[in-house]
């Protein structure tokens, strides 16, 4: 057991893609520590599902949230104390089904958070139903004749919504994924990492991904080029697809203030309230 791991017993299936994400994340934390970002300033959150067990396994502080909400939970943490780095883990059902509104708005407002989506195209923990990213025709207990919906492309969706950092990773390429995650956490603004992850029990995509994955040589320079890369289907480029600097939400909202660190004392707060709640001096 390393110093980033808790005593929680790991219950992922042998061969699960989540192991790759867990290991890549730990590597990313160590990379960040080398750059002076302390691990105790990195707060994690997760939704509900197989992906979310990463919360129990990582020896990092945070808030184990509920299905589809980790992206909103971490925005609350960030707004309360902007000195913290916040990372929301989410499944594809979490981020693109139950909680898609939070994703779109977090990107739109450029909330300074990182979202890592464990995209395996299936609801594993509830035994294999189709998700927002399942291919058309995907047979599952809820779609026995095959999924009749087209999958969402989370990358183009996030680009369109205003994400300032968009990347794709693969749980089978741990080194590159670690590097991508570290960059995402370092990025000031909304960073999105869509991690392709096989589910050995219900959607084993190892073979397919090993054929289709292609390492992106360099990050496209324009939004249009990034969109073109994100749209590709014949190959699945991995790496940082888009990155741009834009003002972040909390600074736009309240500048350099920090609601918990710069909190007014009881006396100061009471004086402020009294100014509004007590009669003004009569002007003579």
């Amino acid at each position, binding site marked *: 057991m390393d110093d980033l791991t808790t005593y929680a017993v790991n219950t992922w299936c042998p061969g699960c893609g989540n192991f790759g994400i867990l290991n890549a994340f730990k590597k990313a934390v160590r990379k960040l520590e080398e750059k002076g970002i302390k691990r105790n300033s990195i707060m994690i959150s997760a939704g509900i599902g197989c992906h979310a067990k990463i919360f129990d396994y990582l020896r990092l502080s*945070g808030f*184990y*949230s509920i299905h589809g909400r980790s992206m909103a939970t971490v925005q609350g943490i960030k707004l309360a*104390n902007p000195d913290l780095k916040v990372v929301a883990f989410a499944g594809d059902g979490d981020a693109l089904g139950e909680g898609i509104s939070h994703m779109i*708005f977090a990107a739109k407002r450029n909330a300074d958070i990182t979202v890592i989506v464990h995209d395996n195209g299936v609801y594993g923990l509830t035994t294999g139903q189709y998700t927002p990213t399942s291919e058309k025709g995907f047979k599952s207990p809820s779609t026995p004749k095959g999924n009749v919906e087209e999958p969402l492309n989370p990358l183009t969706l996030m680009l369109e919504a205003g994400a300032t950092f968009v990347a794709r990773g693969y749980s089978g390429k741990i080194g590159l994924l670690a590097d991508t995650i570290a960059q995402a956490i370092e990025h000031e603004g909304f960073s999105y990492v869509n991690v392709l992850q096989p589910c050995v029990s219900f959607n084993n995509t190892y073979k397919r991904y090993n054929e289709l994955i292609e390492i992106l040589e360099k990050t496209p320079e324009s939004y249009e080029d990034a969109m073109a890369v994100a749209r590709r289907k014949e190959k699945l480029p991995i790496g940082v697809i888009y990155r741009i600097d834009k003002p972040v939400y909390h600074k736009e909202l309240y500048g350099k203030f920090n609601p918990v660190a*710069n909190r007014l004392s009881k006396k100061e*707060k009471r004086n402020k309230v009294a100014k509004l709640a007590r009669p003004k001096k009569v002007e003579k």
Partner: protein
Amino acid sequence: MRREVFTFIVGGKAGQGVRKAGTVASQLFLEMGRNSFQMDDYPSLIKGGHNFSVVSTSTDEVTSQHMKADLVVALDSKSYEIHRNHLKENGTMACDSAVKEEGVISLPISSEAKKYPNRELISGLSSIAILAATIGMEKEELVDLIKKQYKREVENNVSYASTIYDAAYQEIGGKFSLEKGKSKGVLLTGNEAIALGAAAGGLDIYFAYPMTPSTSILHYLARHSEDLGIVAVHPENEIAVAQMATGATFAGAKAMVASSGGGFSLMQETFSLAGMSEAPVLFVLGSRPGPSTGVPTYTEQGDLKYSIRQGQGEFPRIVSSPGTVEEAFYLASEMLELVWKFQTPGVLLTEKHMEEGRKNVDLDVSKAKWAEPLLHKKGEFKRYLDTSDGMSPLLFPPSEELIKWNSYEHDELGITTEEPEKIVGMHNKRIKKHEALVKHMKSIHTVNVFGNKGPAIFTYGSTTMSVLEALRHGNIDATVVQPRYVEPLPVWELERYKDKKCIVVEQSSIGQFASLLKENVGIKAQKVIKKYDGRPFDPIELAEEIKEVV
């Protein structure tokens, strides 16, 4: 001696500045040292329709609008039709000259307004000029008032108001003489009182999505964000609102949210999350007539049982309901203190009538409570350390210690568990917190009692103001019993009334409050006076209803 209450009603279309006129009238009365209560009635639309504002004022305490007016100003003919029955016997109906009816004072409200670019908005000002004339205010005083209260295009406003004042003075100048009083303080709506009370209790951050009747808390805190050192955030929906607030408490911020029933339903999963993760989030639930969208801009108390049974699963929660605008201030701070003390979600249950009702209040800010978390001192930190009273000391990030909050059942460190003895242990921890909460509540003020004669009248929330006003108006002896808390219900305080003659007054169609009292305290009401037409009680009518039972 009969107490003197003067009531002013102004009615017109949305966009004619009716509510503003009501507020300025309240301010005018306050400057005379008089108490007032203002109720604004408006349908859910932006322009047109019929809005009215009722302001009742007295040198004595006044806690409700009266629906019999001394002076009605009807800015249009619809207002005349609606309010002709709201006039006292010797009352004055002042109308726009377009209204051709006998016995009304006809004034050039709209024809004069046409001379100004903002003819719609400016016409509301006529009601203030008419009020000033009928109560014998000097024109200079009126001009001073307008300069302070109608600052935009002030020259036009002064000119228009002077014309209307002169016309009104000729007909009814000085008809009413209003005594000066000794009241002081400021005018606040219930929502402003809640916002300020929470601020006085240490609020750091506020999250809300607009929903009537709680929207104005968001407006007030956003406007005064820098004045109060409070961040106001308006996210994409109520789910995000509740989640962000819960996340904010993890970082140590005192957080509050508000909505009405519909938005509150969306917050249920997070309410339960707050129960499980022991997140001290304060929720304000502002009721309006339901079910569903219901009647958005009106009032009801149909959410009582809903408020005390929020969220799936078993966990302690605190629900309180303020009876007056002053109490809304103090209770908001007290609720913030309690949710932090017991690390569990709380609901401040209120209604449109309270939230948007405006009253003069004289607050003592130093009497507000202050939220102060129990902090971990040293050694290994366990978020869910099982203590004798169930409360675990808190630590906020960043820290060398591991801080894990969890929506799953968890062990003391905050790691997910499915082990039977740990499940039982954490259930018992939450039960201990509930017991500690009840014990604490036995040591604080949980029930207001007004008077000590006659039958017991049980009421709660904004209906308390209606009942108190009805008793004053009808000169009725009764003992008003108003629990400030409805969960845990202070049974230990209420039991003593069990054998008394009891009446319940509430704004519910099925009598939820009466049923709560019956189920938990064994109080059997002789009569449950209910009202559920969306309008608050008129104390004049309520006094008659109470007298029938007494």
